[in-house]
């Protein structure tokens, strides 16, 4: 892999690190499998792209995208909490609805941002001959770093601990005065805000927003979380959030290695199979490892 290709991989890995953190918040912290992200990723990108094209400064456009993502998370939470629709189904409903919303927002299936000003443009001008991709990676790295710190601080706070309790044991949480519904609303809002931020950044680095760009986001996010936590198991929040980001980057590296290794004969359209295999491997590994260890211990006794 060339350095240039590696920077591209790093860039996209960092962006999907945000999604991994979002997925961690719902799947692991709240125990709420939230498929809304397939829609809110695109929503973040679509709103940001539409806003930029209509002349709104890129920073505000990005904020609008994030806000839209937040709202979509709230819709899923509302469907689940207010009407008792199963969480998985509630999120699928929102995701399906968002597909139409995204087309409406953009007015067409995709918007090109190649010649539009993005949040990276001012820095690219400052860059003085350094290739744009380095500048982008630096800025995205900084954003992910700040977001990561905020999420770590949040999860270690009283409020964050209460949210973790809700995911672990609702009855106990309630008996300790925690308002369960509120925590789910806040958690889903935060998660989808992060995912939409990822979508907004993705659109701006890749120069387009497309109505189908969100397909499979949830699986990639899960892959990152699972790979990260398998390789770096820990209880400390700082390590967990870091492992989400690392998992995302490693996933991207694994994918690009698989696609680049010409002797395997895979091409870009095989991406979904590669993802599924990687996630399966990450899921199988801890289990097999445990069985192997147990067997080894049993052998020693004999």
């Amino acid at each position, binding site marked *: 892999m060339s350095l240039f290709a590696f920077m591209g991989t790093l860039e996209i890995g960092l962006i999907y690190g945000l999604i991994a953190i979002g997925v961690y918040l719902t799947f692991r912290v709240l125990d709420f499998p939230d498929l809304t992200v397939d829609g809110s990723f695109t929503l973040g990108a679509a709103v940001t792209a539409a806003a930029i094209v209509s002349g709104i400064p890129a920073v505000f456009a990005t904020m609008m995208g994030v806000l839209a993502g937040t709202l979509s998370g709230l819709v899923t939470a509302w469907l689940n909490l207010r009407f008792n629709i199963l969480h998985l189904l509630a999120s699928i409903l929102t995701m399906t609805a968002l597909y139409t919303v995204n087309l409406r927002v953009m007015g067409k299936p995709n918007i090109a941002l190649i010649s539009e000003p993005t949040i990276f443009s001012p820095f690219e001008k400052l860059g003085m001959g350094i290739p744009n991709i380095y500048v982008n990676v630096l800025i995205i790295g900084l954003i992910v770093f700040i977001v990561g710190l905020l999420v770590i601080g949040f999860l270690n706070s009283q409020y964050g*601990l*209460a949210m*973790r309790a809700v995911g672990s044991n609702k009855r106990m949480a309630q*008996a*300790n*005065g925690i308002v369960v519904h509120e925590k789910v609303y806040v958690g889903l809002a935060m998660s989808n805000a992060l995912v939409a931020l990822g979508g907004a950044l993705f659109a701006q680095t890749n120069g387009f927003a497309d109505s189908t760009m969100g397909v499979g986001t949830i699986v990639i996010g899960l892959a990152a979380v699972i790979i990260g936590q398998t390789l770096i198991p820990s209880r400390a929040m700082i390590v967990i959030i870091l492992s989400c980001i690392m998992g995302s980057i490693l996933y991207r590296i694994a994918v690009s290695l698989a696609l680049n290794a010409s002797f395997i004969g895979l091409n870009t359209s095989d991406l979904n199979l590669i993802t599924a295999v990687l996630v399966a491997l990450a899921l199988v590994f801890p289990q097999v490892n445990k069985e192997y260890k147990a067997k080894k211990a049993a052998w020693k006794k004999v």
Partner: protein
Amino acid sequence: MIRCKNLHVTFNTGLPTEKCALKGIDLEIAESQFVTVIGSNGAGKSTLLNSIAGDVNITQGQLFFAHKEVTHWSAAIRTKDVARVFQDPLMGTCSDLTVEENMSLAYGRGKRGNLSPALNASLRKVFQEQLSRLNLGLEDRLQSEMGLLSGGQRQSVSLLMSALQPSKILLLDEHTAALDPKTAVLIMDITAQIIEEKKLTVMMVTHSMRQALDFGSRTLMLHEGEIIFDIQNEERSQYDVSDLLKLFAKAKNDGETLADDKLLLDS
């Protein structure tokens, strides 16, 4: 401290499976009174506790804590006054969180959690002091996951957690039923200590007639959603386990209760 006025709780109202769990409970419990509650399965003991804690909606009637009407307060708000320990040791704590995180949650009971760190050195010291009262060596395991502790240890921690914040009412729902006899005695000792120390108003549901008479100063018997029997102080001291069992049999009004009674007598 606790006053129930004509309390009704109905589940599945309007459906064929409609069930009246409580049928007009009138009850007044004085401050720092320790009440034990007995009754056969389905008598409404847990429903009574749940309706006081706010986990179950009151269909009709009123509920007061001291002079405040709390009938329509949410469970979360009522936790300012009410602490509880569940029967299932797994229920009172979060297995995925560490001992200190669980205790921190209980420490914040009834307060709105803010964004300051949930744990710090001075809190850890408080938790360690509290845990050392149990003599289970848990004070050195603050960072252990709750799920790694035994049922008895978890129940002990739940009990400590219920007393971390000043509350006025303690609800114990057969909190020793899932424990081995030795641990059950230990837990009851700590329970009595905490109640004495904090001057709590207590309702304890139990299936053990011995416990029902040995602890507290008043005993209630529930049957099919009604209080059929209420003794306290001197009157109660004249009763023994066999009297209670006779009452049980009378309530059930059939002879088949013998096997049940044997069970009750053993415990």
